[in-house]
Structure formats: C-alpha cells, structure tokens
C-alpha cells in the first residue's frame, strides 16, 4: 500500500507535459487492445 501511495505521489508530481506523454501511451495501449479483439464484451452486453 505504501509503495502504491509512493508511486501515485511520484506520478502526480511529474510535469504536465510528462503526464500527457503517459496519457498518450495509455490511449495507444487501449486502442491496440480494442483493435486486437481481446477486449471482453461490456458487462451490459454480456448479461443481455
């Protein structure tokens, strides 16, 4: 838990430009997962 807090604190203290680079990487990873078809159905679709 302390390690997680430390990590979050470190990420929070990064300059905005650096945080935005991380956001772009997260977005690209999300797009890659979506394009691969690996993503599970949304829960609402799955339970219908």
């Amino acid at each position, binding site marked *: 838990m302390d390690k997680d807090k430390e990590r979050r604190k470190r*990420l929070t203290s990064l300059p*905005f*430009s650096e*945080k*935005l680079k991380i*956001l772009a990487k997260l*977005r690209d990873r999300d797009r890659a997962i979506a394009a691969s078809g690996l993503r599970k159905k949304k829960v609402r679709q799955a339970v219908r």
Partner: protein
Amino acid sequence: MKTTLEVINGMVNDGVIGKYAIGGAVGATFYLEPLATADVDIFVMLSTAPGSSLLSLTPIYDYLRTRGCQVEGERVVVGDWPVQFLPAHSALEQEALAQSVETEVEGVRTRVLRAEHLVAIALKTGRAKDYARIVQFLDQDAIDADRLKRILMRHALVDKWEKFERKYLGG
C-alpha cells in the same frame, strides 16, 4: 498533444473560438496522477452566429475539416487526439473558463480548469466516472476546500454535494 494544442491556439488566433481551457480527465491529470482517457475535453467560449441566439459548433468543425481533421461523431481528431469541444453554456462553466489557469505543454501555452471547478462540473455531470474522479481529487488532497465550498454555494450544488458525501464518503 503539442500539435493538438497548437491547432486549438490557431483557432483562437483566427477568431473561430474565444477563450478555451482543458477539462475532463486530461484537465484532472494536471492535478492528479495520469488518468486514462480516450479524448480531450475542451471547454470553449463561443459567440453566437449573426441573427441567431444559438451557439453552434459548425464553425469549429468547418475550420478543422479544411485542415484535414476527421470528425468522429461528437469529436474531431486534432493532431493525434480526439477532441470534444464543449461550449461553456452554464454560469458554472463560464466561471470555470474565466478562472482557468495558464500553463505550458512542451512550450505551447494553454489553459486548464481549476481543480475545484473540475470537481464541481464532475458533480453536476454526475456519472459514475465523474464521482470516481471527485474521490481521486479528495484522496490526493488536490482541492482547496474553502474555494470548492464557495463554488458549490454560488451554483446551487450544495445539496448534490451532501448527497455525494453521504453515498460515497460515508459522511
């Protein structure tokens, strides 16, 4: 993001939009750890078309289309980010825009909504992800409680805040 902001700043310089500021998850990332998101919310001051009282996003879309940007539903892909332009309709959004803070992204000047306005707008919007974001702001002690209280009072959001507190913070 640098290219995206350069294009948006160009829209200001060309008179297509008025003042703008980043909101949503990207705006929250200014104050918090990076929050995964697929798009950028841009709160924007628009002027009404001559002879009309309606605010229209059409000039924005037209401007960006001529610069090769793709419109995808409510979003326009500017640079490598889908952008949603949100006209500052309400008094809360107009105040948020007026009091936004200036910053730089890779040398490009831009503006971001204040943390307390991001929280108030999230509270007003009221989706699950908005409430989750408010909890993150509180967890990371990223808001000025007095400033938030004044905003909530000015915009009649105190009751909604108290309901949020009872439901999510056990208050």
